[in-house]
């Protein structure tokens, strides 16, 4: 016979281990992206297919460079959090941990690569 109570067995096993942090993080980044994405689509879109000289000169200007930089930072952070939830919903155990680490690495790697390229173009 086990003397452990139902309450003791259930304590700490709930899904909401960290409260509403993730929800709020997604909400803040989504509002930021709501402004950034339309600006990014039409700045980036206006120079795709242009010559190399035009592209380099374009990203040396403050407005396109700032929009691109902010979109890279907020966009990949938003992706990291969103993709983490996707993994948490469908994959469990060690595979879940490995996938979340991979997705986090990929997000920051892409963000850093984009910012490095942008810095090289802007300066």
């Amino acid at each position, binding site marked *: 016979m*086990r003397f452990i109570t*139902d309450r003791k*067995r*259930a304590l700490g096993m709930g899904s909401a281990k960290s409260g509403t942090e993730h929800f709020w993080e997604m*909400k803040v980044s*989504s*509002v930021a*992206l*709501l402004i950034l*994405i339309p600006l990014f*689509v*039409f700045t*980036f*879109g*206006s120079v*795709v*297919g242009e010559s*190399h000289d035009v*592209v*380099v000169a374009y*990203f040396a200007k403050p407005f396109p460079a700032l929009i*691109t930089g902010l979109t*890279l930072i907020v*966009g*990949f952070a938003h*992706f990291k959090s*969103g*993709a983490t939830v*996707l993994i948490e919903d469908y994959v469990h155990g060690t595979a879940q941990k490995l996938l979340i680490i991979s997705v986090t690495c*990929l997000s920051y790697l*892409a963000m850093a*690569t*984009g910012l*490095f*390229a*942008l810095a*090289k*173009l802007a300066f």
Partner: protein
Amino acid sequence: MAEMNRGSRPLSPHLSIYRPQLTSISSILVRITGNALIVGALLVVWWLLAAATSPEYFAFVDGLLTSVFGKLVMLGSIWALWYHTLGGVRHLIWDNARGLDLDSAYKLGWAVVYGSGLLTLLTIVIL
């Protein structure tokens, strides 16, 4: 005691037995588009890196992005981007406990579907 019924409790409805509805499909599409956007996002980063490297490397990646295949991926990404954006707006509305009744949820669902198509067309026309 909860011990008696562990493992045999009914699970929440699975996709295979759940009739697809506008509300469920439009919600799943937000998740699919959001995660699929990584393909377009990585292509954009690659394009930026190529532009920062050399004119020859840039010509290669830019050629790839403006090829028929590249344009198809970009077109899909633009639609996914607008769909995910409008789906996100719907969530921002829902977060305030507004529009959660069935009638409003359906209207918002169709607004996301048609709105994303319209914004995609608009983007193609402008760019």
